[in-house]
């Protein structure tokens, strides 16, 4: 083994870093977006957005939408906490104010009722959700059932067909989000979407696109280093 592609979760990538470091084995993650991922080991790399970048973008986008006070909801893992903290920083940098903030375990039923409480808090002009599709779907359904009309901004990880499958198209209609992957971004990506849908009968999400791109890069590197591929050659190549 000369390289590991993965992991998916920032929490797992951060926890595994000492093992990769000890084995002098490159781990490149296409998904884990916590800011510390590339700081914990010289053998841990990534090819994805970073929460510091997304948080600043989320904050600026909410401000442009006219939100001046927001409610924030999310999940208490490394990803969710980083997303919320950095979105908060991004929004406050713009001059905005966070009037409600709550993290809740992913499978906790209270996540949905938090949405109601958050939406009522001091009349926020927007909401953000730092969570993955299963939790975001719950919150969006609750907000829609309450008739909440203020803008809701969700993260790039929620740009997945799973959101509509879990929440229904009506509940997610009009939801704003950060986009990292979309067929309009270029002909190569459009072609990837077309081929992915033909093969799997569903559109790809950012995780699929990032994983494909990272795998192609690593295979290109391995092919060019053929006959001399080693853990150290891979690390030097990156």
């Amino acid at each position: 083994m000369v390289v590991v592609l993965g992991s998916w979760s920032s929490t797992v990538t951060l926890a595994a870093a000492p093992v990769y470091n000890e084995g002098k084995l490159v781990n490149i993650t296409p998904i884990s977006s916590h800011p510390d991922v590339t700081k914990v080991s010289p053998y841990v790399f990534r090819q994805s957005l970073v929460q510091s970048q997304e948080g600043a973008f989320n904050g600026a986008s909410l401000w442009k939408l006219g939100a001046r006070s927001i409610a924030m909801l999310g999940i208490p893992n490394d990803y969710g906490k980083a997303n919320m903290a950095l979105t908060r920083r991004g929004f406050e940098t713009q001059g905005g104010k966070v009037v409600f903030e709550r993290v809740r375990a992913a499978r906790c039923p209270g996540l949905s009722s938090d949405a109601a409480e958050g939406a009522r808090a001091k009349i926020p002009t927007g909401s953000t959700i730092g969570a993955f599709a299963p939790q975001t779907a719950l919150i969006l359904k609750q907000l829609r059932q309450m008739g909440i009309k203020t803008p809701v901004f969700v993260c790039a990880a929620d740009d997945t067909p799973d959101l509509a499958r879990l929440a229904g198209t009506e509940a997610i209609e009009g939801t704003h989000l950060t986009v990292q992957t979309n067929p309009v971004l270029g002909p190569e990506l459009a072609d990837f979407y077309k081929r992915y849908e033909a093969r799997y009968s569903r559109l790809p999400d950012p995780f699929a696109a990032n994983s494909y791109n990272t795998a192609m890069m690593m295979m290109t590197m391995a092919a060019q280093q053929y006959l001399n591929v080693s853990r150290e050659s891979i690390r030097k190549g990156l």
Partner: protein
Amino acid sequence: MNRSARVSDEIRSFDGIFGKLKFDPASREWEFKLLHGVIENGTTKVIN
């Protein structure tokens, strides 16, 4: 797909499905472009 990564040296860019991505050696991060989208009829539409 045009794969223009120069991997005989260190990779500083990769031309894959996202187009040309650049690597910042200082931060050890790849630079992804982010856009603002809105969901319409169950599909993400890029608006900005």
